[in-house]
């Protein structure tokens, strides 16, 4: 399989934008995806998600949406056979696609390269007396990005950092973490919250050594809402019964280091853990929507370039 994959240029991307927007990149996707496994489909959803193969010129070579390696390998082999049958001059774009990047509108353009961009991982915690399911649900985890501009990041610690000084995060910045990232997305994406009931994070300076400010982070959060979401793939599900509640309540602790000379965090590790409840359309909690423990790790890893992928709810940032 690895040998097969090396014959391709691999890419990942978010499919809704590719399907529904109209810039050059989206039109490129739309040009071949209708030839694929979900082409023309509108029910139960109109998604075109899956694995696709195409030429750089945009010709469809193959596609599948499967978790079976053998089926995936067969699709890749068939796509390569089609590729070989296409004359060289028809495989490639006649222009250098690098010259058209300005025509593409991606949220990643807003990446705060001088700011704080962290990854927020989520995972269930073990429950006494209730073993985790012995399938993908028992191993589930998820991740999203959380971004702060440089000026916003500087407001996460005291303006005049001296050992012992404490500083409450500005409400809007604490709410960004609580409402956009402390959500139950362990088994699949879910919406954030409009506003929190509690979003309190305090930074305390423990030491200052040269330009590095050493910090501890403590906090607590609670956000919840009620609503109806189709959770069995059928929108009629929204009409059944009363609206249900969903929410997350946590406590937090962590450590960070801020380089005053560079004007940026060089270490940031915060853990939030507590209780989640309820379910939404895509988070696969139909069988498990009562109160249960959940945890989040909010970490800065400068080597992880995927932190440049935009947060799922960047649109709510007001940037």
């Amino acid at each position: 399989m690895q040998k097969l994959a090396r014959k391709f240029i691999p890419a990942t991307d978010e499919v809704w934008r590719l399907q529904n927007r109209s810039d050059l990149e989206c039109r490129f996707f739309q040009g071949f995806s209708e030839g694929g496994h979900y082409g023309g489909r509108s029910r139960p959803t109109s998604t075109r998600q899956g694995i696709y193969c195409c030429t750089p010129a945009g010709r469809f070579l193959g596609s599948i949406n499967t978790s079976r390696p053998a089926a995936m390998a067969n699709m890749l082999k068939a796509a390569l056979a089609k590729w070989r049958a296409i004359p060289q001059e028809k495989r490639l774009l006649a222009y250098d696609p690098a010259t058209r990047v300005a025509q593409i509108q991606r949220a990643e353009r807003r990446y705060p390269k001088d700011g704080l961009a962290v990854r927020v991982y989520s995972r269930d915690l073990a429950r006494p007396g209730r073993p985790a399911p012995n399938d993908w649900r028992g191993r589930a985890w998820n991740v999203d990005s959380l971004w702060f501009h440089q000026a916003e990041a500087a407001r996460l610690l005291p303006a005049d950092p001296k050992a012992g000084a404490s500083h409450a995060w500005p409400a809007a910045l604490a709410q960004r973490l609580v409402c956009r990232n402390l959500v139950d997305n362990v088994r699949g994406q879910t919406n954030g919250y409009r506003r929190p009931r509690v979003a309190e994070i305090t930074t305390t300076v423990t030491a200052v050594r040269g330009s590095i400010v050493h910090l501890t982070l403590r906090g607590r959060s609670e956000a919840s809402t009620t609503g109806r979401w189709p959770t069995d793939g059928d929108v009629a599900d929204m009409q059944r019964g009363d609206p249900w509640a969903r929410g997350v309540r946590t406590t937090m602790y962590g450590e960070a280091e801020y380089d005053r000379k560079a004007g940026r965090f060089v270490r940031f590790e915060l853990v939030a853990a507590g209780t989640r409840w309820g379910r939404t359309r895509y988070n696969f909690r139909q069988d498990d929507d009562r109160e249960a423990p959940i945890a989040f790790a909010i970490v800065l890893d400068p080597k992880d370039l995927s932190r440049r992928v935009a947060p799922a709810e960047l649109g709510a940032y007001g940037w």
Partner: protein
Amino acid sequence: MPSLRGALLSLAVLAAPAPLTHAGPKTSAPTVTKQNWKRLRDHVRPDKSELAWRRIPWRASLWDAVIDANREKKPILLWAMNGHPLACT
């Protein structure tokens, strides 16, 4: 984690299989403290085997792949999901 990430794991050809269970703290709704936060952090963050699929040099956008594929004269393999596979799916 949505199951397609697991499927793409097969592209990475792991030296060792992913563990079937992920042992975590045996607590219910713990309060995070100076004493337990690192243990919780290590439980939540995916381990090496869970990130094996990231060993494939995924470009983070379709157009990045078009640029490289055109230059290297190779076909494109695109993994497109509701939610970016390198972020929240």
